[in-house]
């Protein structure tokens, strides 16, 4: 495990950049645990101070210190993405495995449902839920909803992976040697599936944080807790751009870009690591 990591760090520039970006954002988010201020309190400070030695990121029009505000936003957004990713991974893993293994009518039904989920536009549906639930749409509820909507792509991927594993020779060997099916799946096949689950988890985090940003920017989420999206929501709400409070916009945008780029590079380079064909090409390039 460590060997893989150090190899990737040394020879895969995308991985190294992604890792450092993510590490930076992650540590920044962890700082929120040491925050001297409560992020939900408003008008605690003089509003609209430019970034300076005392307030590194300045303050916003709501009298909040943007530095600490940002740490909470990073933490909440990452946590949101992580929660969604974990929940949807469980769904896609279970559905993918069952569908790939059971085959027959179970597979057909599951894949029919899958097709519906793949072809439903997520955003209008989430807006509809917000419309109905309003204040009941807490961050956790939103995470559950997003997870329920975000498993389909990867379930299909895992299913096709399963199908091909099922027909590999070593599976036949295991069956003939009398190994029970659940044991074959857990011991022989999961090691092939897990890397995919891991790399799709990163991709899913990107997707779900993106959805949270989008919803929250429009105010279609719990706007009282700081996240990437709600920070921009309040900035827009106070017309920060027109009022010339540029740092209120710029800082969250920079952090969002860093987070997304970091996660994306990690997911891309891990994908490449998992796919030996692509690794071979890198080797062939003589880099």
């Amino acid at each position, binding site marked *: 495990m460590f060997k893989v990591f150090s190899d990737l760090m040394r020879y895969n520039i995308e991985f190294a950049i992604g890792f450092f970006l993510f590490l930076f954002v992650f540590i920044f988010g962890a700082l929120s645990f040491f925050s001297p201020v409560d992020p939900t309190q408003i008008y605690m400070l003089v509003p609209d101070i430019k970034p300076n030695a005392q307030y590194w990121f300045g303050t916003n029009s709501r009298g909040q210190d943007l530095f600490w505000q940002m740490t909470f936003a990073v933490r909440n957004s990452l946590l949101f993405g992580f929660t969604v990713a974990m929940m949807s991974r469980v769904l896609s893993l279970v559905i993918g495995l069952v569908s790939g293994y059971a085959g027959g009518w179970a597979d057909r039904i599951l894949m*029919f449902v899958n*097709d*519906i989920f*793949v*072809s*439903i*536009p*997520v*955003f*209008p*549906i989430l*807006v*509809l*839920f*917000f*419309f*109905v639930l309003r204040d009941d749409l807490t961050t956790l509820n939103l995470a559950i909803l997003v997870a329920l909507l975000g498993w389909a*792509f990867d379930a299909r991927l895992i299913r096709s992976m399963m199908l091909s594993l099922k027909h590999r020779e070593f599976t036949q060997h295991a069956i003939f040697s009398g190994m029970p099916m659940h044991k074959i799946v857990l011991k022989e096949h999961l090691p092939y599936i897990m890397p995919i689950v891991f790399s799709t988890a990163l991709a899913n985090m*990107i997707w779900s*944080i*993106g959805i949270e*940003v*989008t919803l929250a*920017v*429009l105010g*279609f989420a719990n706007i009282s807790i700081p996240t990437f999206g709600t920070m*921009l929501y309040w900035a827009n709400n106070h017309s920060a*751009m027109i009022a010339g409070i540029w740092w209120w*916009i710029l800082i969250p*945008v920079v952090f*969002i*870009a860093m987070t*997304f*780029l970091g*996660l*994306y*590079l990690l997911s*891309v380079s891990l994908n490449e690591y998992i796919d030996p*064909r*692509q690794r071979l*090409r890198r080797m062939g*390039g003589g880099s």
Partner: protein
Amino acid sequence: MINYLLFAAKRFLQLVAVVFSGVSVAFFVSHLSPIDPVEAAIRRSTRNSNVNPEAVEKMRETLTALYGVDVPMWQQFTNFWSKVVVGDFGPSLLSFPTPTMDLVLRALPWTVGLLLVTVLGTWCIGNFLGAFAGYFQNNKYLKAFGIVTMSIQPIPYYIVAFLTLILLAFIWPILPLGGGYAIGLVQEWSWVFVLSVMKHAILPILSLILVGLGLWFLGMRALVSNIISEDYVVFAELAGVSKPKIVISYVMRNALVPQLTALAMAIGGIFSGTIITEQVFSYPGLGSLLVRAVNSGDYTLVLAVSSVAVAAVAVAIFIVDLLHPLLDPRIKVE
């Protein structure tokens, strides 16, 4: 040909199933809403004047009949569907008594226009450049292009739209801040109007392309770098077939099949991206309509927009799927 028609018919049934279940879910979700459409409409029309309570009562009766909320849920459901199949979602609360369908139909062309231009544009340009980037892996311009798209692609649509708006309409104001056409123009087939529409579409299209291009470019590049080691490509190279021909007819042509599948799967996401981009540029499409409907509590409109969105995406995927057997002779059309 008969086979193809059968395939299309089967696929059409699937489309109907997807639309039916999607719209039904939307119906049930929206009916859990605490907002009573009748009371909301009455409040709206009686806000600024004193109205005779009897008239209010009459109005309530009429509206209740109109919205059909006085019957049990399952009956509301069947009533809802019997109206929806003829395109009637009931009157809008926001601009009562305009039928919601009118509002949706007014917004739909704008969204479809944006979607069509950006999806076709990004898919074609992205695949074309991606194929060359995958084949000529050492070309430094294509490499640089890859790095740029790679760093924009993961950013959410909203952020990219927002940044292009700030850069090209605010800091360097060369393009309009928003809207579908200049204020005061009449919607007609005149040169001035068309020009204005095009000018207002540049920024939304630009930001959608910036995000969307990467998906196809990077996907195609990865596919192509696998395909170039396939036997049929190596064989063609050994035969001295010209490079452009190999890239287009051998490499790209084979990669288009999975890219078409990817397109079908990505349309939902692109649609979501489009409606959020519309909101940033106050573009008069479905996205802006949806946000307005939510903010004003117009439940019939929210339901109508969501349903049309589900249907539109399903139809788009249906069309892409119909193209599939035409592109891949190996697919057995059953």
